[in-house]
C-alpha cells in the first residue's frame, strides 16, 4: 500500500516539475533540463563502447580511458568541476541510440559515425567530430592482395553488424561490380576469431578498429591493412535533440580541447597562461570575457577542461599514439599542421 502512495506522490511531483519546466522557459532565459539534472545527480551520464582500445576501454579495476572517454570527462570538468564525476554505461552498437533517446545517458561518446539519417531522423544531434576515421580492409600478407583493386568475385568479408560498415561494404563492392559474401557478427571478438580461422578472406571495419583488433590476432604480423580508405567515418559525440544548451556545452567542451592544442595550451601550462598576451589564450583559460555565462557555467569551465583532461593532442598521444594503435595522426592533425581538425573560434 505504501509503495502505491509513493508512486502517486512521485507522479504528482514529476507532473509539477514538468509544469515548472515549461513555465520557466521564457525568452532569453538559459535553462537546460539536462544540465539541471546533471548538477543535481552530481555526475555526467555517459554512454561508451563495450571496449575499444584507444576510444573507450576499461582496465581491470574498471577505470575508463580513451579519447571518447575524455569527451565525457571534459563535460564533467566543465559542468561539475571534476573530470572524474562521470557514470559510464557500456553500450552495444545496437543499444546506443535508444539509450540516449530514452534518457538513460546524456552524452553518447562511442565512436559513432555522423550521418545525415542518424542526425536528422532518430531524435539525435551530433555535436562535432573527435576522430576522423575511414573504413579499410585487412588481409593476410601472403594472399597476394596489395590493394582493393585485387579483389575478385566471390571474396568473403567479415564485419560487425549494426554499424555503417555493412552499408559502405555494399557500396564499395557494388561500385567495383564485385560479388561478395558478407559475414556479419554481432560482436567484434567473434569477427576476429572467424577471420583468424580463415572463414573470410578480408576483415573490414574502420581503420582505427582494424589497427586495434589486429593486435588480438594469433599472428598480427601476418596481416596488413590495405592502403585504400573506402568511406568517410567522422566519429563524434552525440546528444539528444531538443536541449540546445546541453548540446552547446558538449560541443564546446570538445572544441575547447582542440582549440587549446591549437594555441599551445596544455594541462601543465594552462593556469600560468592567465596573463598571456594573446586574447584567444586568455579567453581559453577564463581570464578574459564571460563565455561560460552563455551556457549558465562559470568562467573557468574551459580552464578546468584543459587542466583536468588536457588538450586534444595530449589525449590523442596518451590513448591512440603511445598505445601503438595509430601513431600517425593523419587527418586528425590540426589544420595548421596539415590535418583537418578545425574548430570555430571560442569568442
Amino acid at each position, binding site marked *: 500500500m505504501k509503495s502505491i502512495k509513493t508512486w502517486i506522490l512521485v507522479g504528482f511531483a514529476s507532473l509539477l516539475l514538468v509544469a515548472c519546466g515549461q513555465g520557466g522557459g521564457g525568452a532569453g532565459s538559459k535553462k537546460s533540463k539536462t544540465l539541471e539534472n546533471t548538477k543535481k545527480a552530481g555526475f555526467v551520464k555517459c554512454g561508451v563502447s563495450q571496449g575499444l582500445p584507444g576510444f573507450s576501454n576499461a582496465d581491470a579495476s574498471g577505470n575508463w580511458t580513451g579519447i571518447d572517454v575524455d569527451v565525457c570527462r571534459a563535460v564533467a570538468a566543465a559542468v561539475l568541476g571534476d573530470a572524474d564525476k562521470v557514470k559510464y554505461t557500456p553500450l552495444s552498437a545496437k543499444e546506443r541510440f535508444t539509450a540516449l533517446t530514452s534518457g538513460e545517458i546524456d552524452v553518447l561518446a562511442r565512436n559513432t559515425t555522423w550521418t545525415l*539519417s542518424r542526425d536528422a531522423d*532518430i531524435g539525435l544531434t551530433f555535436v562535432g567530430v573527435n576522430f576522423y576515421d575511414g573504413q579499410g580492409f585487412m588481409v593476410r600478407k601472403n594472399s597476394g*592482395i596489395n590493394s582493393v583493386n585485387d579483389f575478385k568475385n566471390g571474396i568473403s568479408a567479415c564485419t560487425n553488424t549494426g554499424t555503417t560498415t555493412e*552499408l559502405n561494404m555494399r557500396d564499395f563492392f557494388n561500385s567495383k561490380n564485385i560479388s561478395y559474401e558478407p559475414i556479419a557478427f554481432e560482436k567484434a571478438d567473434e569477427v576476429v*576469431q572467424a577471420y583468424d*580461422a580463415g572463414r573470410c578472406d578480408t576483415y573490414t571495419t574502420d581503420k582505427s578498429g582494424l589497427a586495434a583488433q589486429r593486435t588480438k590476432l594469433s599472428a598480427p604480423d601476418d596481416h596488413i591493412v590495405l592502403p585504400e580508405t573506402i568511406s568517410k567515418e567522422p566519429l563524434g559525440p552525440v546528444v539528444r535533440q*531538443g536541449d540546445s544548451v546541453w548540446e552547446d556545452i558538449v560541443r564546446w567542451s570538445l572544441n575547447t580541447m582542440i582549440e587549446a592544442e591549437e594555441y599551445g595550451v596544455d594541462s601543465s601550462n594552462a593556469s600560468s597562461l592567465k596573463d598571456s598576451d594573446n586574447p584567444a589564450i586568455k579567453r581559453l583559460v577564463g581570464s578574459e570575457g564571460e563565455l561560460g555565462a552563455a551556457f549558465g557555467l562559470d568562467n573557468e569551465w574551459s580552464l578546468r577542461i584543459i587542466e583536468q583532461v588536457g588538450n586534444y593532442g595530449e589525449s590523442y598521444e596518451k590513448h591512440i599514439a603511445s598505445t601503438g594503435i595509430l601513431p600517425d595522426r593523419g587527418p586528425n592533425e590540426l589544420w595548421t599542421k596539415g590535418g583537418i581538425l578545425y574548430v570555430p573560434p571560442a569568442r
Partner: protein
Amino acid sequence: MNLKNFKINLSNKNKGLIPQVLTVLFIILAVVYFTINAQNNMGNRGISFGFGFLSQESSFDIAFSLIDYDGSYSYARAFLVGLLNTILVSAIGIFFATILGVTVGISRLSQNYLISKTAEWYVEIFRNIPLILQIFFWYFAALRALPLTVDSINFYDISFLNVKGWYVPRFIWTNFSLFFYSIIAAIISIFFVSKYAKKQRDEFGKQIPTLYISLGILIGLPFLTFLLGGVTLSFKIPELTQLSKTIYVYQGGVTIIPELISLALALSMYTATFIAENVRAGILGVNKGQKEAAASIGLTKSQILKLVVMPQALRIIIPPTTNQYLNLTKNSSLAAAIAYPDIVLVFAGTALMQTGRAIEIISITMLTYLSLSLSISIFMNWYNKKMAIKEK
C-alpha cells in the same frame, strides 16, 4: 418475475463473468496507457513512429538467403529473408533433434550396458552446458578443424567441405513443376492406399504390405515424369576458382554456410537430450502389464513396440516435446552470435540499427516469434489430439 430471473442469472451464470470482464478491461487500459505513454515520450524527443520504413531500400547484403535478395530490395524483404532463415534452421534442428532424441531415449533403456551408458553420458553432458557455449564450441571448433579451400575434403569430386562452407552441386531442372506435381500426386495416392489397406485389415483381416507399395509409388511416379514427361535434371558441380595468390573459392554450386551447419548441429544436439528424456519417460510410463499382455497373445517384439507401447507412450511424450520444439525455435535467435543471418541478426540487428526504429522492429520481431511458436503449438496440439485415447 423477470427481475427475479435476471437476478438468478446474474448470481449463477454471469457471476464468473464479472471478474473476467474486469480483467479484460484492465489489460486493455494498461495497453492503452503504455501506448499513449510511449507515443508522448517519442513525440517529446522528436522520434516519429510508423512502418513506412519497411518499403525503403535496405542497402545491406545478406550472405545466405532462400529467396532472391540483395541490398536493393526493401526492409520488408530483408525481414522475410531473416524469417525464412529462422524457419529453415528451426526445421532442420527439429528434424534432427527428434531423430537423435528418440534414438538416444530408446538407447537409454537398452539392455546393453555400453549403449545405455553412452546415451546417459550424452544426455547428462549436453543438457547441462549452456547452449550459447555449445554454439560457439561447434562453430569455432568446426572452423579450426576444417581445412582451407585449397585442401578441401573431397566427396567423389562432386561435393567439397572446407572452412568456408559445404559446397554441393546445384540441381538444374527442366519442367520442374511437372516433377513437383507428380510427387504431390504420389503422396495423395499413398494416403488412399493406406486407407484401403486399413479397411482390408479391419474388415477381412488381410495384411497388405503398405510400406513397399508406398515406396514404389513415391519413387515410381516421379520417375515416370523423367521417362515420359520430358523432365530432365543435370548437376552443376562447384568449381575451384583462384581469386589471388592464396585465396580460392568454390563457385557454381550451392553453398551451405558453416554458420548454418554449426547452429543446426548445436540446436539439435542440445534439444535432443530433452527429447530423449521425454521418450524415456513415455516408454517407462506404459504399464509393464501392457507389454506382458501383448506378449501373451503372441505379438512379436516389434509389434509390441509399434502397436501397444508406442501409441500409449506418445500420449506422454508429445506435450513436453512440443515445449522442446518451441524452445528450439526460440533458441535459434542465438544465431546472431555466430553470424547466421536469422531474423534477430538481420532485422532486429542491422535493420534496427540503420533505421533506429526500435519499438516498431522489436514489436514485429516479437510478434513473429509469437506466431511461429503458436503455429507449432497448434500443429502439435492437433497431433496430440489425434494420438489421444478415443473414447468409444
